[in-house]
């Protein structure tokens, strides 16, 4: 029954968006993290979505193909008294851009809501279909 496929399609999208939200949460949590002794700071991560073809023509779910790390240069501040400062007195922070992450979060949450809405509609249509002829 093809209506059930909608739950699969939207379910895959909801789970992909949830993973995106997870990554955003991790980025925001590490926004102020400074580099450890090895000099490597946290790098912002981003999910990459990919279409997951379904059984029927025209149906396609979505999955997270890859989680990439940002190559943006790390933020460095001059704080000679900071315990993590290097020999020149600079502290290396993560390269997370909080504004970008907030926008990403809003976008992910809207997409999540949209797909939940789609599932609700499909569910109510199916419930009405099984009452057909009564």
């Amino acid at each position, binding site marked *: 029954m*093809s*209506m059930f496929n909608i739950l699969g*399609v939207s379910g895959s999208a909801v789970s992909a968006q949830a993973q*995106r939200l997870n990554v955003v949460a991790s980025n925001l949590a590490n926004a102020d993290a400074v580099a450890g002794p090895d000099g490597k700071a946290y790098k912002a991560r981003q999910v990459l*979505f990919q*279409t997951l073809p379904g059984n029927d023509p*025209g149906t396609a779910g979505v999955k997270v193909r890859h989680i990439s790390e940002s190559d943006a240069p790390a933020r460095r501040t001059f704080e000679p008294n900071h315990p993590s400062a290097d020999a020149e007195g600079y502290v290396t922070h993560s390269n997370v851009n909080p504004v970008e992450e907030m926008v990403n979060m809003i976008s992910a949450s809207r997409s999540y809501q949209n797909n939940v809405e789609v599932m609700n*509609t499909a569910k109510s249509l199916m419930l009405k*279909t099984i009452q057909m*002829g009564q």
Partner: protein
Amino acid sequence: MLEQLNARLDTLSSSLQLRSARQQVLASNIANVDTPGYVARDIDFGAALENALTGKVRRPLEQTNVRHLTVTSTDGLIGNPLAYTVQTQPSLDGNSVDLDQQRANFTDNAIRYESTLRFINGHVKTMLSAITGQ
């Protein structure tokens, strides 16, 4: 006599199946709103229903005897050629889903699905009152 009763139900059931297939395609579009390179698709409902009703995509059972029942399979109903939607706002990642349009189409299709269901229910009630003869 029975054929007359069934003919209308046939049209309605084809319509219902097509609506369900379209709902699935629209759900896929909404699910892939953030997937790079995804191309939005849709079903031309009018043309698809005409194909289904005129038997263009139906594969009737082979009849080797005139007394065989005429049974048509609705299997190929979804095999109608899917079309690509017109891109309203070009995006850098090659995604052609217009979310507002898709949401509107999804709601529109859901309402039409439900109205088709009501037509079927009404038809069933009519037939029931006809065969009870009261």
